[in-house]
C-alpha cells in the first residue's frame, strides 16, 4: 500500500528562521506527492505537488519541497518562516495517480514572533 509518514506531531520555529516539515513515503512505482495546509476552521489548501521532473518543487506562499528518492522523503521547507505560516500541514500520496489521496496524520507548525 502507498502511504506517507509525518514523524513530527509539532514543529516549533522562530519567525525569520528556516522551517522544515518532514514527510517520508512508501510507494511502489513512481510516487505522486502533495503538501496541503489547513488553517483553523478552514478546508485544506493545496501548496505543491511532485509528479515528475525537478526534485525541487516550488509552491504557494514561498514553500518548496525536495523529492529525495534515495531517502524516500518529501520534506516541506521555507527559508524564512512567518507567524502566519502557523497551521496544520499534511503530506499526501496518490496511489493511483489520481486524487484518492492517502494523507499523513499532519504536523502542526507553530511560528513564534
Amino acid at each position, binding site marked *: 500500500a502507498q502511504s506517507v509518514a509525518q514523524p513530527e506531531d509539532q514543529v516549533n520555529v522562530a519567525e525569520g528562521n528556516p522551517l522544515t516539515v518532514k514527510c517520508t513515503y512508501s510507494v511502489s512505482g513512481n510516487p505522486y506527492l502533495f503538501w*496541503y495546509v489547513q488553517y483553523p*476552521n*478552514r*478546508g*485544506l*489548501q*493545496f501548496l505543491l*505537488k511532485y*509528479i515528475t521532473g525537478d526534485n525541487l518543487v516550488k509552491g504557494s506562499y514561498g514553500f518548496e519541497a525536495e523529492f529525495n528518492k534515495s531517502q524516500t522523503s518529501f520534506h516541506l521547507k521555507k527559508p524564512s518562516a512567518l507567524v502566519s505560516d502557523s497551521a496544520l500541514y*499534511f503530506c*499526501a500520496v496518490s496511489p*493511483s495517480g*489520481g*486524487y*484518492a*489521496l*492517502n*494523507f*499523513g*496524520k*499532519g504536523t502542526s507548525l507553530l511560528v513564534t514572533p
Partner: protein
Amino acid sequence: EPEVTQTPSHQVTQMGQEVILRCVPISNHLYFYWYRQILGQKVEFLVSFYNNEISEKSEIFDDQFSVERPDGSNFTLKIRSTKLEDSAMYFCASNGRVTGELFFGEGSRLTVL
C-alpha cells in the same frame, strides 16, 4: 476567488438517522470528491465522482454511503443509517482536470449521538 461551499457547517443527529451533506463545487470543475477526518486522526479518502458516476471509492465507503449530483451544481453525500463512528468532519473537494489541484470546502462537522 471561486470556492467550494459546504452545508451544513455542523449537524447533530441521532444514531440510525439519515444524513445528507451538501456541497457546491467550483462551477467549471468536473471531478468531485468526499474526504473525512475523524477528530485527531488523518484525512481519509471516501469517494471520487466523475461523469455522473463513482470513479473510485475506499473501503470506508460501504453500502451506508451514497453520492449524488442531483442537478448541475450540487454534490451530496448521504449516510443512510448513521453510526457513532461516523462522527467526523466531512470535506468536499473538486478539480477541473485530473492532474489539477484539489480545492477543498471548509467541511461539515457531523456529530452522531
